């Protein structure tokens, strides 16, 4: 009994009818996602329709959102199962070799998209001409950094990620006598000068007491950033160093001293330090003669990697990224009168999969069409002879 159900389910899962339904659902999702981008921005629409298992809708008469449509992740999952099942079923004969190649190529393409969705990390590196940078920073995640600047030649950096700050409570900083008590955390906030007569700020030290903080909803619109902010109280040796406001919107450094060691306290975009460093030697912004039409952007970078005893120049320009130590550096943006270059940095362990897939599918289609063409030519020949 169970076996027949299982068999029937498997038969359903690998049926061509299901393929058609799934492809049609995917088309509908793609159309909805494209139209939604006008309001939600690319990231928002992709998260709502593509990177989710269900599309949720908040009806005004309900207090909770309900799923109204399968999301592309669910459709993709079923499509993958369907594809694998179907592929296994294709007859293992030479006449079906093309179809085998095409469908296994598609499986790899889907796998590549899943890997990218799950594991791809996007960061960026912002360098001014002449500056040396040994970290990449996140686009949206923040961290609370405590930097021990006592030694003028060496900064010791301790950082607390925003995900930990969000949980609140008191966080001990390993390697230091300090711990930080999170009094209030804002995933996004708007900062303004505290008007006279307004309620006093929670902050008691630093610039915080003169700043008003208003919580804002999270934004997913492209080119808008969440202003992560928090009220934190550093504690050490049984005494408090006051309540401080830390926010990515604040530029001025704030610091306090404990037992002769000075700590700078700041909220900043999350950094990942690298075992190598880049120095920007030159940034070029070429335009076509007599116009403002950009022709090329390029960054001449000195790559220094002591562990590999490496120091060499690399030119990163349009359509010519640098792939280095599992990360890929692209020319993305520029600023400060062409003296600052922004490289976007992508780490995707599956970046090669689409290339493999492209080769397999193209080859498969060519093989298949060649086989079909040969068969139809042969049939015509037979007809003539008959």
């Amino acid at each position, binding site marked *: 009994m169970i076996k027949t159900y299982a068999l029937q389910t498997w038969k359903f899962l690998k049926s061509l009818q299901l393929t058609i339904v799934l492809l049609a659902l995917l*088309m509908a999702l793609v159309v909805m996602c494209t139209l939604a981008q006008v309001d939600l921005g690319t990231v928002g629409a992709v998260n709502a329709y593509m990177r989710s298992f269900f599309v949720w809708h908040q009806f005004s008469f309900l207090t909770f959102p309900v799923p109204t449509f399968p999301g592309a992740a669910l459709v993709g999952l079923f499509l993958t199962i369907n594809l694998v099942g179907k592929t296994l079923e294709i007859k293992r004969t030479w006449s079906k070799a093309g179809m085998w190649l095409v469908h296994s190529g598609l499986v790899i393409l889907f796998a*590549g998209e899943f890997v990218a969705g799950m594991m791809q990390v996007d960061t960026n590196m912002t360098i001014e001409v002449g500056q040396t940078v040994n970290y990449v920073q996140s686009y949206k995640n923040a961290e609370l950094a405590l930097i021990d600047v006592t030694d003028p030649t060496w900064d010791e950096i301790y950082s607390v990620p925003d995900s930990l700050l969000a949980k609140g409570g008191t966080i001990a900083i390993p390697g230091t006598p300090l711990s930080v008590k999170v009094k209030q955390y804002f995933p996004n906030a708007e900062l303004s000068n505290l008007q006279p007569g307004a309620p006093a700020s929670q902050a008691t030290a630093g610039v915080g007491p003169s700043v008003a903080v208003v919580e804002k909803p999270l934004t997913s619109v492209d080119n808008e950033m969440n202003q992560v902010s928090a009220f934190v109280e550093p504690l050490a040796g049984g005494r408090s160093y006051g309540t401080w406001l830390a926010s990515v919107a604040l530029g001025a450094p704030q610091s306090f001293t404990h037992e002769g060691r000075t700590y700078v306290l700041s909220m900043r975009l999350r950094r990942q330090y690298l075992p190598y460093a880049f120095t920007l030697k030159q940034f070029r912004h070429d335009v076509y003669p007599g116009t403002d039409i950009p022709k090329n952007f390029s960054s001449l970078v000195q790559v220094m990697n002591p562990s590999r005893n490496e120091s060499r120049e690399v030119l990163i320009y349009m359509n010519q990224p640098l792939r280095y130590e599992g990360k890929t550096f692209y020319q993305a943006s520029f600023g400060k009168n062409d003296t600052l270059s922004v490289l*976007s940095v992508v780490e995707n362990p599956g970046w090669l999969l689409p290339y493999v897939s492209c080769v397999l599918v193209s080859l498969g289609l060519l093989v298949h069409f060649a086989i079909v063409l040969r068969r139809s030519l042969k049939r015509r020949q037979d007809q003539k002879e008959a």
Partner: protein
Amino acid sequence: MKLLEKYLPWGSAILALLIALFMALPTGKARGFDVGGFANLPILEGGRVKPLDSLARNSLLVIHSRQGFRFEGRTIGPDEWILDVLFRPAVADQQPIFVIDDTEVLGLIGAQQKQARNYFSLADMAPHLEEIEKQASLAQGKKPQARSRFESAIVNLFDRIYLYYKLRNTLQLTETPGLAWEIQSLGTPEATTRHQALMERAHFRMLPPTAAMGPDSWQSVGQALAAGNTGGPLHPGLIPLAKLSAAYGAGNAEAFNKTLGELDVVVNQLKPEALGHATKETVFNRAQPFFIGLSIYFVAFLALCFSWIYKPETLRKTAYALLSAGAIVHTLGLAARIILQGRPPVTNLYSSAVFVGWGAVILGLITERMYRKGFGTAVAAAAGFASLLVAQNLGTEGDTMEMMRAVLDSNFWLATHVVTITIGYSGTFLAGAIAIAYALRKHIVAVVDPETDKALTDMTYGIICFALFFSFIGTVLGGIWADQSWGRFWGWDPKENGALLIVLWNAIILHARMVGLIRERGIMVMAIFGNIITACSWFGVNMLGVGLHSYGFMDQAFYALTGFIASQVVLMGICYAPAKFWQEKPHGKA
């Protein structure tokens, strides 16, 4: 009569080609002035060196929507017009070149809609210029998508007036006696201010770089005068230009033509290759291969339609021969663009339309060779005509050989991704066109003819396979290009989604046929729907105004696209109408 039937097909094709060749021949002088020779001079504008003729044609297209107009009982072409604008501004201001269709804008300048198109000269609009500028600057504060019809129209009119104003002040300031006077006044107190104004208003640079400057440093007249003002050597092109201006203004054709020779010598000394390149482009401009191709396709289509009622064999062959002639002109035009631009065939929306049409015509020719039923010819001629018509309309927005912005500046990817995906568009459109032919035929031709139906279905199916192959490969190559330049293979950008939709739709058709969900008519209805998807992905995504691929918002095209979609839905209905609607037709209401 027998002889005529024998020679009609190829005779008509040769005639069509001869007409195309005739168009490329140089035109005569206008009022004795060698306007063609002047327009052949190279200039730097929009980042590339081109003949003045290209600029004149494109500017007149932008301002007037056509490449010529009637004035004082004569037809004035782009080359004569640009000379009037540059050297006889008082006359040019009287020429009725600004086309205004919008009734509200007409109301603003105190005119009424009299006919389909209304033409005005700058002089006509002079009393209202201030108001036009005021309204336009109000509208320019809004995003293009958010503008009302009136606001878009007023901004458009203002942009065209501004272009005219810049052209008029490129070589000499309108309010001054002219270039010769300007050269004589070098070093006088107010000269610097005027040079500054000339530099700011210049629309193009006409003076080739001298040996002392960099190879790309073409100069505008204002820059050259400013350099001369500080005691440097005068650019050798300035004096001949001043003489040309004086001769043209005075109506002295002989002096004008003689001085033109002097300027040619100067240009040839400074930039030997520029004049040759400009000459080639001028020939291309004159030949208008895509307009000629469009006309030949139209005649081919007519010939084929007549073949259904009169002399089927001969006229079908004639239509095929004409289609081939059109394809030759079309191909030569594409090749010329590739050579002139040094780029693969598709670089912008305009060239994609030209290429989609070319792909459909070539595919149609092959299909016709295989099946010889006239359908390949009909569909290819219609598709070629339609896409070149779209291209003609897209081409009124300016230079169609504009420079490629940084990320697009890659011949490798333009040649692989863009070309394959465009061939995919061609295939999907051709399949849709055959399906439309099938649907119409079902209703018009009463006789049940399973053999022809089967042939048409086979054609459509084969072309869908072809389209799936190219659109899939094109989409994946696009992903790889995106991985190379933006760091991600797939970003669900509207243009990427559009390409994906074409792939998915074609895949659905093939799988549905495999399961037996659809047969003949099902394939045809789905193929017509493919037209809608392709049109949306080609043009529709540009109208959303989001994403990395949105290179320009087109409000006019929105209505055209909506109309196209509606027509396809109707055709799908016609195709899907049950058998009783067409089978009983010959007997009427029996």
